[in-house]
Each structure stands twice: as C-alpha cells, then as structure tokens.
C-alpha cells in the first residue's frame, strides 16, 4: 500500500513529544476514572464521611454519659445532689437500680459508664454532721470518657448545698463524694488501647483477606471453571472463610500476647471465653469481607469497599473516641459495626473480668451481623456467568 509508506517516510518526530505523550496518558486516565464508579464515589465519600464524623459525631470531652442510680433513700438532699450532677452536663441518669448486684452488672457490661449510690440514712447522717460518703463508681477502662466527668464531681457538693441546704460549716463540706475509678484506677490509656487494637487490627486484616477472594477468581478467569464444577455457593464461602479463621486466631493470640507481656495489660476474665468470642468476631469480619467480594466487580473495588467500611469502624466503634459521647445517630451506626461490640467484649473480659451473661447482647449482635453478611453473600453469589 503506497499511501502508508508515503506517510511513514514523511513522518518525523512531532514537536512537544513529551507533552503530547503525557497528555495522551492523562486523557486515558480521566476516561478510566470516569468509568470506574466506585473510585468516583470514593473521591466524594471519603472526605465527606471524614468531615461529618469528625465534625459531628466525635467528641473528646463527652457529655451526657449514661449513669445508673442506686437510690436507697428518697430525700431532698439526694435529689439535689442528683440534680447538681445532671447540671454538670456530664451525667445522664439512664437507669435506676435497686441492688448493688444490678449496679455492678451494669458497669461490668458497659451499659452505663457511671453509677451513683446514695446510702440509706444519708440525709440524717449529714444533718448529724457525720460527714457520710456518697459513692460514684466509674468505668475507667476508657480514661478519656471518664476523666473529665470525674474531675467535675468536686463542684457538685457546692452546687447541691447552695440550692437547698444551708447546714454545717461552709469550710468543712457536710459530706464527701468518694469517686471510685473501677477497672483502670491508674487511668492508663494503654490498658484501653491495647485491647482495642486487637479488634482494629483483626477488622483490617480479616476484611482484606476475604474481600479479594471472589473477585480474584473472576479476574484470573478461574471462576468459569469453578462454576462449571459441582460446588454450591455455601461450600465456596465456607472453603474461603475457614482457613482465615485460623489465621485471625493466630493474629489475636499474637496481639494479646504482646499486650500482656510487653505492655502489662491484664486479662482478668476467662481466656476460653475471650478465644470463643474473638473467633466469632473474626468470622463476622471474614463474612463481611466475603460479602464485599461477591458485590465488587474487581479487586480494586473490593479494596475500596473495605476501606469505606474500615473508616467508620475506627471512628464510630469507640476505639478512638468514647462511644457514649457520640450523638444518638452515630451510636446507631456504631451498633451496626462488629468492632463496636467486640471492643466492649474484649475490654470487659480483659479489664473487668466479665463473663458471658454480661456480654450476651454484644455476642448476639456479632452473631446476627455474621449471619446477615453470610446470607447476603450466598444470595449475591452468582452461580452463572449471566
């Protein structure tokens, strides 16, 4: 063909070659980016999500923290004290209990962060000038959450007295508030962070392991063979999840082992229970990762979905910032994340010596999330190439 040979003879290096080629590459990248909807969504979602979460949901000096009251006498003084505590804006009375056992259980299960006990005959003792003690117990596993509220307690005596009572000498307070920082009396943040890290690290690694598993088969072309063989979606899922349960278990042992040996974090509760519930948590994350894998079109999308799940997990689960300090809507989102429940479990077992009945709600929540993810995955798994 003479036309092309003429053309190629005339062809010399065009000017601005460097810029031309860079431009060609740039145009191609933009086209690909526009076609990749998930990447596009991520460009918008990540900054918006970060901003909203940091701006609205996160509060490092949390207020209105759930508090239980054990009221053993109904007196004006008792009511003034409670009123004064509520006025600090740190405490919100969510439960009234009737026994010490109930009081302890709520703290252990993490359902309240504080407990106030006003003993029987308190007002009379005050009037007699006995200077009785009022107990405020705090769940100090998260020192950030408990810290500022506890330091505000000092003002409470004054406020309570100002309003109603004018008894005793102002120099010597007529009663004392005995604050008891339970589970972490030294307010060491390490004690809070190490168990939290168990959950965070497991979430990150487990999600990624399974998030790539189905998309990898599709991208490498092995899915066509696999689908032509007699295997069901449930069998594929179990085969892909179970090996990583072991991997996650080893990881958990590693992190907890280092935490105990190197950072001196205690394990007060049962190791068997910890192992059992950790396995449940690991499996839940694997199931969620696997679900992403059945939804994503390729490995990149699966990774992006994992990141978009991991981000709120860190911010809204109570790992970085106190859960009780978040607004209600953020707490609802938090309840839907497995990490939230596992953090309560791991902190309660390691630092508080909690037992299974204390952890019932969170264990069931993990189970429900796991089954939900597995159901979606099995339903989403395409048995044909349609």
């Amino acid at each position, binding site marked *: 063909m003479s036309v092309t040979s003429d053309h190629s003879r005339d062809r010399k290096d065009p000017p601005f070659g460097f810029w031309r080629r860079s431009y060609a590459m740039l145009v191609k990248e933009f086209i690909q980016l526009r076609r990749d909807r998930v990447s596009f969504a991520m460009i918008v979602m990540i900054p918006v999500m970060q901003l909203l979460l940091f701006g609205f949901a996160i509060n490092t000096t949390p207020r209105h923290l759930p508090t239980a009251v054990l009221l053993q006498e109904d007196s004006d003084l008792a009511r003034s004290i409670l009123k004064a505590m509520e006025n600090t804006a740190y405490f919100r009375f969510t439960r009234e209990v009737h026994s010490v056992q109930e009081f302890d259980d709520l703290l252990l299960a993490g359902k309240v962060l504080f407990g106030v006990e006003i003993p029987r005959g308190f007002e009379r003792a005050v009037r007699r000038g006995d200077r009785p003690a009022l107990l405020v117990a705090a769940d100090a596993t998260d020192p950030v959450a408990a810290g500022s509220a506890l330091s505000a307690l000092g003002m409470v005596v004054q406020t309570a007295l100002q309003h109603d009572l004018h008894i005793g000498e102002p120099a010597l307070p007529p009663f004392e508030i005995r604050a008891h920082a339970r589970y972490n009396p030294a307010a060491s943040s390490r004690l809070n962070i190490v168990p939290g890290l168990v959950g965070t690290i497991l979430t990150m690694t487990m999600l990624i392991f399974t998030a790539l598993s189905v998309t990898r088969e599709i991208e*490498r072309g*092995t899915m*066509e063979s696999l689908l*032509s*063989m*007699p*295997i069901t979606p449930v069998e594929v899922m179990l085969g892909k999840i179970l090996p990583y349960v072991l991997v996650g278990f080893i990881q958990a042992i590693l992190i907890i082992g280092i935490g105990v040996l190197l950072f001196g974090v205690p394990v007060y509760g049962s190791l068997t229970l910890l192992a059992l519930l950790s396995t449940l948590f690991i499996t839940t994350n694997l199931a969620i990762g696997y679900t992403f894998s059945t939804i994503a079109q390729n490995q990149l999308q699966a990774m992006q979905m994992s990141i978009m799940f991991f981000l709120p997990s860190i911010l809204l689960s109570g790992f970085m910032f106190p859960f009780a300090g978040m607004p209600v809507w953020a707490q609802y989102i938090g309840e839907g994340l497995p990490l939230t429940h596992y953090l309560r479990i791991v902190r309660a077992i390691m630092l508080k010596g909690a037992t299974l009945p204390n952890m019932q709600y969170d264990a069931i929540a993990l189970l429900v999330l796991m089954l939900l993810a597995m159901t979606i995955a099995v339903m989403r798994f395409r048995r*044909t*190439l*349609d």
Partner: protein
Amino acid sequence: MSVAPTPASDIAIDVRGLSKSFGGREVVHDLSMQVKRGTIYGFLGPNGSGKTTTIRMLCGLLTPDSGEGTCLGYDIRRDADRIKRQVGYMTQRFSLYQDLSVRENLEFVARLYGVADARRAAADMIQRLGLNGREEQLAGALSGGWKQRLALGACTLPSPQLLLLDEPTAGVDPKARRDFWNEIHALAADGLTVLVSTHYMDEAERCHEIAYIAYGHLLAHGTVDQVIATSALSTWTVAGDGLNALAAELTGKPGIDMVAPFGTSLHVSGRDKAAMEASIAPYRDRDGLRWQHGEPSLEDVFIELMTRATDNFR
C-alpha cells in the same frame, strides 16, 4: 437393530430453540441441535458467532432466554447441578489455578467431584498425561501445549460422560494438536461424547459430525460429506499466471459467490452452476490458465455460508 431408540440413552445433547441476548444483542438465535452419544461433534463458526455462549448454556453456566432441552437426559434449566457432575468443561482461556502445581490442581478437581482417592486419581492422571516430572511445577509456568493437556486432564479426571471443549487447540503447535486429537478419539472410543469448538478445518474433518454457526444461527449440520453435499456449491480450481488480476475480474460476476486464493491456485465457487459457467466461459481459454472442475472443500463451504450469513443477519 433397535426400532425406536429411547432418546435418553442414545442422545447426549438434545436442545430446541435456544436463544440468548446480552445487553439487547442476540448472540444465539433459535438454536436446535442433537448430539448422539459416543460421537465427536465439531462446532464451527467465526469469532463471536455464539459458540462459547451455546456451550455455556449446555453446562448450566448461562441460562437461556428461551428454548429448552436436555443434556445427558437432564433438563438444562432445572438440573444444572446434576449436569455439572457428569460434564467436563474445558474453557477457552486456561482457567485452572496458575499458582497451584499440576498435582495440586488435579487433586482439587478430584476432591470437588468426590473422587474416592484424590491423590491416587491425580497421580494416575499425571501418568496418563505424560506430565511426570512436572507434577510439582506451577500450572502458570507450563507452556501452552502442556497447559492444554493439563486442562483436558482436569476435565476428564472425574470420568464425565460428556466433554465440552471450547477451542481447546487455539495457539497450540501442530504436533500437540495431533496428540490432542488422538486422545479425543481414544476417549470417544470409550463411549464419551465430545462437543468441540474449533476454527481449524483439518480438525473439523476429524469429527464424526459438525455444525456450523454464524451470528448465532445454526447454518448447517451433519457429517462433513453431508454438509458439503447440501451446500450445492460447485467449485473450479484455476492455476497459472496472473491470478491476482483474474481474481479481481471474476469477483462480483453473476453466479460467482466466492473467489479465494489457495496457495498457487484460485478457488472459484458459486451455488448457481449455470450462471457461474457462463461467467467464467470467457476466461476458460485464456493462455497460461489451467481450469479444473473440483470438489468444494469444507473451507469453501464455510466461507460461503459465512458470507451469506453476513448478508442475511448483519
């Protein structure tokens, strides 16, 4: 001689009116076919003609939009799971695990199908494929020919009754192709039914029966001789000088449907024998040309079918 053979025992594939569209484009149109047990059935057609889609519908990987039928006596819509247990499907693209060794791939397949002793079955297959010494090699590191042997081994390992091979010899050297076909004939002799898609004419001629599909339409089927005979194509072979110029002159003349160079000669074919004879008459006595009335080859028939299909369906 059996008078009325029961279809289930005699026919491996029996489908009627299969259609399938992707995104509004119909890839397979109203396709019906029957494949007898123990035969090698060649499936021919140009790229994108719907061969792969048809094969995938037969083994339950795709659901037909319309049409029905049976594969090994099982309904292709309802019994996909049963079909999968008895069908070996070799995909066009190598689809075993590249990061598993030869042995590990075969053991995986054996376990999936519930073969009693998976290790033993894999070892036997390695022996049979002549892959001894390579069993620990990663499948991804094998050459094209060996990959193809391994893939065939993997789909015959669970002793299926039907093999679906999608362009199994694409990109494989002639020696490996010949070995492969000898293997297929050996398998068919054992009673296995084989449906194989291909582009190669020599391979088509090694099939017991063939079907030709283009643009989703099944255009011809039967034995090679039947397909040639029913095409009603007559062909002249011309050898000599100035063939390029002659080809240009003949193309488009009434009655001449196809002019194709074959090495040092030219094949001139047409369905309307009389019109073609009239058109070539002026050239018959031209110096330096030797005309010979020949049999159309399978390739002539297919190219003619394809050209006609282009006009009808495109």
